[in-house]
């Protein structure tokens, strides 16, 4: 036995010594000549299950890619588990993906708390936690967390753009801010204050609410009586609807900015009352499936055909399905760039070298750019105003 080992070791040494034999194909766990294993967690059940459709869209997109021949000849093996939007469950499922299923990377786990729970684990295991589905700013931290990357514009980027718009159009504004008293709300608030810079004193009143509050009526009354004429509304859908309605009912007519988190016409503005929502301002970076502007848009036509063929049970008016398509398209681009060097390190390297990449579903002019020091793929958005029926974009694409 021992005698057999010596020639074997010699062979191995020879093989390692000749780089030519390995230069073309390099694999980490989860990648082979025929397959790339991609892991994912999504809330298919529980309080955030409305977002579960994103995970399904991604699966359908990969199915389409596989039918078209895969990526550089390799099929994507997409393994997606339900975490019910519960962080401990996310940890359990992601460990299963990494240690048992041996995926090459974890893609698009959804939710700020869920991703926070696996943030350290992924970085100590050196497994890519790629294009996470949350807008928190902390995912753009390549120095301390080189294995984690976000995708959509982060909260601070978005808030800075509102601040810029206020400074430009209403330099003497008296600003009122309502924010959810947690990481999400404070992230927005910080970006907003950074954006105002020396003019942060324009904020005349900022009040918070807790998710346990039955209504935010009392907060709106406080903001209104401050005499503010600009209102930045950092709330999740239910509270956003309450705030829009109460502001209107009390006769307060500020210039009203609402965060992109609660810009859904169906689940926020309709409950609040469409006539009460006229004039609201938000930002957008993706094409809205309900916006008639995109009826003949080639990108959105591709999306609609994809939906019909690969995800027929999915909703054609749900922006989440557009989101899932765009983010899946981005991963495919990264894996294409990686070529035959499918190591985890190279996946991150390629994800951090996107150059002016445009998805089918992003607004015109919104380009994805990343570098080794900049882990924020989408950093530009366009302002939109609600006209009583739909969001109407105006002005330039803002941001980087």
């Amino acid at each position: 036995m021992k005698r057999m080992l010596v020639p074997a070791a010699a062979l191995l040494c020879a093989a390692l010594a000749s780089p030519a034999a390995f230069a073309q194909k390099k694999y980490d766990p989860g990648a082979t000549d025929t397959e790339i294993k991609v892991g994912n967690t999504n809330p298919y059940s529980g309080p955030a299950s409305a977002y579960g459709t994103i995970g399904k869209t991604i699966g359908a997109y990969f199915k389409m890619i596989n039918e078209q021949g895969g990526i550089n000849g390799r099929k994507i093996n997409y393994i997606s588990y339900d975490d019910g939007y519960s962080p401990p469950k996310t940890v359990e499922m992601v460990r299963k993906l990494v240690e048992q299923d041996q995926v090459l990377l974890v893609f698009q786990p959804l939710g700020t708390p869920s991703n926070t729970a696996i943030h350290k684990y992924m970085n100590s295991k050196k497994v890519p936690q790629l294009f996470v589905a949350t807008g928190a700013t902390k995912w753009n931290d390549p120095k301390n967390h080189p294995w984690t990357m976000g995708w959509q514009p982060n909260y601070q980027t978005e808030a800075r753009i509102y601040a810029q718009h206020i400074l430009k159009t209403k330099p003497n504004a008296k600003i009122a801010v309502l924010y959810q008293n947690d990481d999400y709300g404070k992230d927005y608030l910080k970006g907003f204050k950074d954006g105002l810079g020396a003019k942060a004193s324009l904020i005349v009143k900022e009040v918070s609410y807790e998710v346990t509050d039955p209504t935010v009526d009392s907060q709106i009354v406080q903001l209104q009586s401050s005499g503010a004429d600009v209102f930045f509304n950092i709330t999740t859908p239910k509270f956003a609807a309450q705030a829009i309605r109460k502001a209107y009912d009390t006769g307060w007519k500020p210039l009203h900015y609402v965060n992109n988190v609660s810009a859904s016409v169906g689940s926020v503005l309709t409950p609040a009352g469409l006539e009460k929502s006229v004039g609201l301002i938000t930002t957008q970076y993706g094409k809205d499936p309900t916006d008639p502007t995109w009826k003949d848009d080639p990108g959105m036509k591709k999306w609609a055909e994809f939906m019909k063929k690969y995800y027929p049970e999915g909703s054609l008016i749900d922006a989440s399905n557009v989101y899932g398509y765009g983010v899946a398209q981005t991963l495919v681009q990264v894996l294409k760039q990686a070529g035959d060097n499918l190591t985890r390190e190279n996946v991150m390297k390629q994800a951090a070298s996107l150059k002016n990449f445009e998805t089918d579903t992003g607004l015109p002019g919104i380009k994805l750019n990343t570098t080794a020091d900049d882990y924020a793929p989408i950093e530009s958005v366009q302002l939109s105003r609600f006209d009583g029926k739909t969001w109407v974009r105006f002005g330039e694409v803002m941001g980087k």
Partner: protein
Amino acid sequence: MEAFLHQVLAGLATGGIYASVALALVMIYQATHHLNFAQGEMAMFSTYIAWSLISAGLPYWAAFALTVVFAFILGVVIERVVIRPVENAPVLAVVVVFIALLVILNSVTGWIYTYTIKTFPSPFPAQPLFGNKYVSSHELGAIGVTLAVLLLLYGFFRYTPLGLAMRAAAQNPDSSRLVGIRVGWMLALGWGLAAAIGSVAGMMVAPIVYLDPNMMGGILLYAFAAALVGGIDNPGGAVFGGFLVGVLENVLGAFVIGNELKLAVALVLIIGVLVVRPSGFFGKVYVTRV
């Protein structure tokens, strides 16, 4: 001054919400001497039934009446099927059953109706009364409905034989049995009535906070505070407690301690009342001979 007045009025409006849920809590306590943690979720589930009926094309008041009947039956069935087996179990076991009910109803509703918020129609006019900017017509209407339910309850417990029998069954089951009251059925009836009141509360709350499976979570805590402040066995006290908690919460939150500590107001009230005066402002003090 105007800001203060506005906060007080907004507080009365939310206080009306707490009062209506507190009434249901008092009801179940009167009938069974238990605090039902699933009260809010039962009300929420009934409200979804009302939403389905209205979406199916039924007029509001027909859906309202059907929902109250449905909630009553739901309450009786839950008592018979789930609560009866743990009748003689320790208090802790009963509490666990209540919490299980809460989680089950919440998840089942989310599973059937999803977690996206829904609008729930109001039977009252959309325009505020007298063109005021402080309180919507629905909020005023909801307060009126709560007061009407309170009057009905008062009359029921005070003047009808059935109401008296129910009170007797809750306070002294053994003696009640000896005078011929069917204690088991009285408990079931109490559950039914509490669920019916809860469904009315749910239908009054939903237009204000929007309908979603978690709509009762925060409200229930405030309602507990309201019920305890007023006296857990006194319907009138509970309604008063509801308004008090609503106004206190707003005024303290806006002018004294800040919005972060609003929920703490409710919790401090609960603990304060339990320590200083466990029977609440209006509750009866029971003395038991040992």
